[in-house]
């Protein structure tokens, strides 16, 4: 067993932002505890100033355990990244321990609060992961968060390329991603990756009236990983996960439901709209005989009558039950009215024990979406009321980062919505933004994004596609189908509770 203390966002300064008593309290606790080492995930200083770095250097020496420190966005203000290297240590590096490795990477962008792990750093991280592939516990540490967090107000500053980083970490079987930044402690399981966010150790700026805290990570000999959020009040919250390997699926019983999921058809007369690809996709979809066809939005490229007229023509050719939620393109110009006129208000679909809940997240003439506080409440209530049902939530915007897309707050309350969905026990979430197909399970909720079905401006190396989602008694199987050639590839498969 190995224990790691994870601190973050100390914001050491002579000013009001820094709570020295909270820092001393936590550091004393760490020094007294049986910790093998300590990770500080950045924002050691408040403004990256020399006097702050000098004080931080002194304060950090109080920690009597091996210490890994990496820079946060506050540390690189005022060219503080030079001082970080001079007074604290390297901004990127590798720390090896028995059975494992911590690879820390500087995710900051000077003078911006946003983060990214750009090309060279990404390759450096990838090479380090390849080098240490045989380590049982691979831990990656950076300042910025990877998955939207609840209770942080407006979701922002997730790594610009969080989708690419998430994909890299999952494919390398990284066990743990530690980060800070948002001053909110949180632990999510994304497939077998634990995303461990520390709250703030000693900054005055806590959220929702919370107190300072740090996280305790335990790596067990049997592969289990536990994370305990420990607040200065002594309150504790724990989570634990044991990766299951091998992951074996033995199909049994008949298929209970088949959904075809598509998005971003962007019907228009623009050159980027691939009419023949959409026609081909519709032929394939009808051949697949789905129980429900879900369109996750951006049906038209612009909310104008001529495009809606074309779109409804395609839509009518799709046989069977259909559910369409609007994307941001659909409600531009007169689109808000036209969408309802042509496609109607998105309504719940009930099929036996399956309940499909549409959520409208598009905002007028901005690609950034919102569910809103009232919308979240309504969604939480709906999930609770239908506890016994198999609940499928359909919306346009992403709630987890998608590889190759740039995460710039596509859903402004993404953190809270993700929390409502995972905590409320949504059994499946379907989204359709970002132009790339992706599937990942957060906590117990599989989240599947559809690529673009017929729009040339996409980000999918496999081209235009749609998803086929088959639900069995004990598992969900998602195939991505290439919209031109009809070839399929398994996008995801997850065990689920009995629908």
């Amino acid at each position, binding site marked *: 067993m190995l224990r790691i203390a994870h601190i973050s966002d100390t914001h050491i300064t002579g000013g009001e932002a820094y709570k020295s008593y909270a820092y001393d309290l936590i550091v004393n606790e760490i020094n007294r505890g049986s910790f093998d080492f300590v990770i500080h995930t950045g924002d050691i200083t408040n403004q990256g100033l020399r006097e702050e770095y000098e004080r931080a250097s002194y304060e950090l020496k109080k920690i009597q355990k091996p210490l890994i420190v990496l820079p946060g966005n506050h540390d690189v203000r005022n060219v503080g990244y030079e001082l970080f290297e001079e007074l604290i240590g390297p901004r990127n590096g590798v720390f090896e321990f028995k059975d494992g490795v911590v690879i820390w990477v500087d995710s900051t962008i000077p003078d911006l609060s946003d983060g*990214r*792990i*750009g*090309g*060279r*750093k*990404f*390759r450096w991280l*990838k090479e380090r992961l*390849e080098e240490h*592939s*045989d380590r049982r516990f691979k831990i990656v540490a950076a300042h910025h968060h990877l998955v939207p967090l609840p209770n942080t107000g407006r979701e922002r500053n997730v790594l*610009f*390329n969080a989708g*690419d*980083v998430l*994909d*890299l970490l999952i*494919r*390398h*079987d990284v066990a743990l991603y530690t980060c800070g930044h948002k001053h909110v402690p949180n632990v999510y399981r994304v497939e077998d990756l634990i995303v461990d966010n520390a709250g703030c150790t000693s900054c005055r700026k806590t959220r929702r009236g919370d107190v300072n805290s740090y996280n305790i990570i335990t790596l067990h000999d049997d592969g289990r990983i536990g994370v305990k959020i420990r607040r200065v009040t002594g309150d504790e919250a724990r989570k634990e996960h044991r990766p299951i*390997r*091998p*992951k*074996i*699926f*033995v*199909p049994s019983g008949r298929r209970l439901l088949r959904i075809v999921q598509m998005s971003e058809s962007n019907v228009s007369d623009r050159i980027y709209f691939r009419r023949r690809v959409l026609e081909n996709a519709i032929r394939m979809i009808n051949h697949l005989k789905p129980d429900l066809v879900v369109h996750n939005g951006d049906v038209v490229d612009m909310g104008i009558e001529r495009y809606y007229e074309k779109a409804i023509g395609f839509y009518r050719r799709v046989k069977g039950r259909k559910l369409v939620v609007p994307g941001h393109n659909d409600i531009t110009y007169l689109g808000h009215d036209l969408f309802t006129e042509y496609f109607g208000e998105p309504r719940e679909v009930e099929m036996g024990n399956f309940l499909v809940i549409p959520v409208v997240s598009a905002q007028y003439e901005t690609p950034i979406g919102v569910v809103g506080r009232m919308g979240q409440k309504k969604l939480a209530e709906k999930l609770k009321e239908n506890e016994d049902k198999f609940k499928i939530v359909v919306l346009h915007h992403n709630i987890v980062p998608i590889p*190759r897309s*740039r995460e710039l707050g596509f859903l402004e309350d993404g953190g809270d919505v993700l929390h409502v969905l995972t905590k409320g026990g949504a059994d499946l979430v379907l989204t359709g933004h970002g132009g790339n197909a992706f599937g990942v399970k957060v906590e117990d909720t599989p989240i599947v994004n559809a690529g673009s079905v017929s729009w040339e401006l996409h980000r999918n*190396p*496999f081209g235009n596609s749609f998803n086929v989602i088959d639900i069995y008694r004990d598992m969900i*199987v998602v*195939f991505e189908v290439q919209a031109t050639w009809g070839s*399929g*590839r*398994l996008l*995801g*498969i997850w065990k689920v509770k009995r629908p």
Partner: protein
Amino acid sequence: METKAPVRIYMTRKLIGVSPDDTVKKACGIMVDFDIGSLVVVEDGKVVGFFTKSDIIRRVVIPGLPNDTPVKEIMTKDLVAVDVNAPLREVLDLMAKKSIKHMLIEENGEIVGVFSLTDLLTASRRKLETAIAAE
């Protein structure tokens, strides 16, 4: 595609399988439904056998066995696997030499994945890179 990278990042890690007593017909149905060319045979959560579409041709169709033959009678029991940390080029080299389209992948003595030519095609298109900035 980087051939020095470990095969773990390219392999299929969610394995689809059948039970030893399942029939060849059922197994073929699963292969068609899931559009895959191989299946693992699972007993008590462990992989105990493996077979591919070509094994079915060789061991069932040509000898004229009925399609209700249990898979345990036609599966490969002596499993050959490479380590999950083996570089892709080594795996490809081995697959070329053995002239096989599927390779089982193991970690700590347990089968945890399978790498097929389809995975190779996927790997060739889906690069582990970021376009966000050169930095």
